[in-house]
């Protein structure tokens, strides 16, 4: 349903899958995680482990005194990066790359609307990412861990979270429209 015009050479990328087919596939992966592991998917937790490890490398005592980092560092007996979510996110990067490769969608480019410069878009990407990282920790999860996983498990907090994500995004969309359309 999308025609892709790309300024790069090479064959045009394959169209994206029907959203419902992709969604069912995603749902089956999530179901597999429930059945095999008894837990759902996640993403932001892996970055927390990464940040906690980084802080602890640079300033060990500082990290030790911080309850938030401590939660991800554990008792110090195990490498905090040897964590389920960290490995899962490595898989996500791999899986995304494999799919992109098969569909001819690996492109070094910046996704943006026509009315914003590349620099401007990257600036907003950083700001958006920072807000996302902060918010994901406040809410104890992101769209994968809370909305998707918690949504399928009918968790009260996850459904409240999910509705608020859409509310927050729709409320902001008008003000950043130059970026996208």
């Amino acid at each position, binding site marked *: 349903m999308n025609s892709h015009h790309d300024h790069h050479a090479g064959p045009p990328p394959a169209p994206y899958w029907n959203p419902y087919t992709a*969604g069912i596939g995603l*749902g089956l992966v999530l179901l597999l995680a429930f059945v095999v*592991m008894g837990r759902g998917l996640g993403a932001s937790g892996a970055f927390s482990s990464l940040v906690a490890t980084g802080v602890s490398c640079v300033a060990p005592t500082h990290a030790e005194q911080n309850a*938030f980092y401590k939660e991800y560092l554990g008792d110090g007996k195990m490498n905090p990066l040897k964590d*389920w979510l960290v490995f899962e996110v490595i898989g*996500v990067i791999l899986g995304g790359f494999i799919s992109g490769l098969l569909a001819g*969608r690996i492109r070094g480019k910046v996704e943006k609307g026509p009315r914003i410069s590349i620099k401007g*878009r990257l600036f907003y990407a950083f700001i958006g990412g920072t807000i996302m990282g902060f918010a994901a920790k406040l809410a104890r999860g992101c769209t994968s861990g809370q909305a998707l996983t918690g949504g399928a498990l009918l968790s009260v907090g996850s459904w409240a979270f999910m509705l608020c994500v859409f509310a927050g995004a729709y409320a902001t969309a008008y003000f950043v429209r130059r970026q*996208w359309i």
Partner: protein
Amino acid sequence: MNAPFFKFGAFNEEISLVIAVLIGVGFGFFLERAGFGNGRKLAAQFYGYDLTVFKVMFSAIVTAMLGLFYLSWIGYVDLSLVYVSPTYLVPQILGGLLLGVGFAIGGYCPGTSCVSAATGRYDGFVYLIGIVFGIFVFGEMFSIMESLYSATPMGSITLPQLFGVSYGMIVMLVVFMAVGGFIFAAWAEKKFAHLRPEEQ
């Protein structure tokens, strides 16, 4: 009844990490297939002309929810052993609103930005750096945030428990809501089609 396999001790931690990578590959693959490596397609959700985010998310939720329901119902999965993260209502509402703001500004969420960066999108990569920085800011501010972070704890509570109705009833309502949403999405995409950029 012998699932979730890990909770029944079918394999150890080391093996679970291998499984983590495999499940992650599946997750990343379908995210990319859906077009979630593209921030512009994701952000389109909030301008109404392309509701792929809603369609994918809710078809995934419905699939996993129905699958888990029936596998538990036939007695294959012990639902009580599937980890439901505890609810902290106020921080989750505030965090959700804020996360929505970050989503609209940046165009990704943590999982999709990984896929985006993996397929060569520079904005996805910058977004990832932003996430790491945001978590660092949260970590450094944790002493001030702590009381809000752990406010209104409700434990691992589900909608059926909250409303005191059967699990199956909520499952049915979620399915109806999703299907209603999909019908609405088809209508909305037509209505906002004029916003769709020429070149996407």
